């Protein structure tokens, strides 16, 4: 077995472990709710007078069976694992009998469409600004640094609220809620596309700007660290032009930033839950916000599980990718 295979195996082992821990957390934590989740939802329904006692009893039994709460914890866990493997995440409480998978499937495309471009753009611009600021130094650096610090220290949800109020409510330049106008129906038409884009800009920029700030700060400090490296001095001494040297620095400082990118993409789903809630954008974040308000445990659990899996997968790929980019690490993997 080659060293690389060994490395791969070892990594897979770790991630399998992490995945099991994630699954167990996802399974056991909601079951720690005082009483059990079904009791909680039933008592809420009773309070709100949403159903008579006969149908309550029926609902109760359905959920007990669904959650498997009538069996032993070990059996429940095995049951749960089996269902997860089959892609069955259960049934929503609040939107009974909608399956959780379909709720997630409706919301996920919106989230990806909103966040993936925002992350890619913010990451690219942030890294370029950061590297240039570190290399140029002086006023450009100081000004840029303070700007990035401000941009990255504004919590992204605060920034989102301010944008929403300023641009959509006060100035009324862009629509204030949703992914498309009320009364529009999703269709492949220009009108619909334009409407979607109108709704898109605000949440998009609120994410991009914050992301640029964070990336720029990270890149700047990595690049400052690289600037002190001996190879930079040596390259200067040999008369290699500045733009080449910036490229070396950029590449070497980039390695940790690549991890950052992949992790952001992985945590994309969970990353800006609140931004969606603020703009009532119909993605995962808003779904989660609603589910929490309605104590819709199966939906909460489904969403958290999906986020965990996404992040774990991204992490795993980063570890492999990292080896491909950095010859130092690649060498260690293939045992040179």
């Amino acid at each position, binding site marked *: 077995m080659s060293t690389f295979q060994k490395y791969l195996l070892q990594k897979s082992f*770790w*991630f399998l*472990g*992490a995945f099991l*821990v*994630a699954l167990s*957390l*996802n399974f056991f*934590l*909601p*079951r*720690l*709710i*005082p009483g059990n989740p079904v009791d909680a939802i039933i008592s809420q329904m009773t309070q709100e007078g949403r159903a008579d006692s006969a149908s309550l009893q029926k609902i109760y039994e359905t959920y007990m069976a669904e959650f498997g709460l009538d069996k032993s914890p070990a059996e429940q866990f095995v049951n749960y694992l089996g269902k997860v493997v089959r892609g069955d995440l259960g049934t929503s409480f609040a939107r009974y009998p909608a399956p959780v998978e379909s709720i997630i499937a409706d919301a996920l495309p919106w989230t990806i469409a909103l966040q993936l471009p925002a992350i890619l753009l913010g990451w690219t611009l942030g890294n370029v600004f950061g590297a240039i600021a570190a290399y140029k*130094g002086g006023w450009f*650096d*100081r000004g840029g640094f303070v700007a990035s*610090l*401000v941009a*990255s*220290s*504004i*919590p992204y*949800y*605060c920034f989102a*609220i*301010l944008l*929403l*109020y300023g641009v959509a*409510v*006060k100035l009324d330049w862009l629509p*204030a*809620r949703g992914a498309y106008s009320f009364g529009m129906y999703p269709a492949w038409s220009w009108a619909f596309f334009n409407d979607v884009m109108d709704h898109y800009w605000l949440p998009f920029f609120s994410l991009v700007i914050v992301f640029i700030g964070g990336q720029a700060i990270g890149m700047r*400090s990595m690049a*400052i*660290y690289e600037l*002190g490296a001996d190879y930079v001095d040596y390259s200067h001494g040999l008369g290699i032009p500045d733009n080449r040297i910036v490229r070396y620095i950029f590449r070497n400082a980039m390695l940790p930033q690549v991890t950052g990118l992949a992790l952001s993409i992985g*945590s994309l789903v*969970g990353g800006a*839950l*609140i931004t969606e*809630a*603020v703009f009532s954008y119909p993605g995962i974040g808003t779904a*989660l*916000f609603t589910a*929490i*308000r309605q104590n819709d*445990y199966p939906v*909460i659990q489904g969403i*958290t599980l999906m*986020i*965990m899996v996404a*992040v*774990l997968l991204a*992490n795993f790929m980063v570890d492999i990718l990292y080896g491909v980019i950095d010859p130092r690490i690649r060498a260690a993997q293939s045992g040179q």
Partner: protein
Amino acid sequence: MSGIPVTMDSPPPPAAKQSAQSRVRSFTRMLSTRFYVSATMVAMILFFAFLGPFFWGVGEPKQIVGGLYEAPSRELILGTDNFGRDVFTQLMHGTRSSLVIGVVAGLIATTIGVVMGLTAGYFGGVIDEMLMGITNVVITIPSIVVLILLSIAVGTKSIVTMAIIIGVTSWPWTARAVRAQSSSVRNREHVDLARLSGASTVSLMFWEVLPYMLSYIFMAFVLQLTSGILQEAALSMLGLGPSNAVSLGIMLHWSLLWESVRTGAWWAFIPPTVMLTLIAFSLFLLQSSLDEVFNPRLRGR
């Protein structure tokens, strides 16, 4: 025989000798404007949160003092919220809750992180692999998810419970960084010399390794504190906040639920937003100015 070979070494020139006083002086001179600005901001926020209620408080934070979304007036300078409660009073109490949660969560996270990292870095080998294995697993599981699940599991929460939940999920980065530091300090020769003086392992870790990381640990604490405050706000906005208190996140949760942004009741959501931003900004600035002092490479930039 004896005599000639050993030359008496004269003390170094006076310039090298520094009194404790002058050392303090040169330390304070290294602090930048950035430090003074951020420290002043932090002090003002602390004053506002902890002493403010005695000066400007209008009753209890949850006391209803007026109608729904009353605009700011002379009596109620930030108006009322969706329940008719005084926003200014809530803001002071909310800031206090956020700070308390941040400090407690920061302390918990830093302590766990330092203990894990120090132990792993100092001993190396199997212990290191085990502890870092745990750390890596915790890192790869997104903390916001664990926070959501934990918050649901706990049900009704106090501010302290909230802080504990945040603290126990956010230590791994500190652990990793402290481990890297401690395994490098551990290889310094004075640690071996102290061992040759018969010092026990615990005293080596405490007296020879830990002092080298204090400045770093303090900075890590400031970062953990900041992120604790932000995480609390995020959880609270999602509706998973403490049930018996007001926090900045809870104020924002209400304004999301009751549509104060879209109805234009700016006094209900601008104050907590600005306050959170101020807190985060001043703490980041503080951290970066300290980083500059402790980390000579960044100096003069």
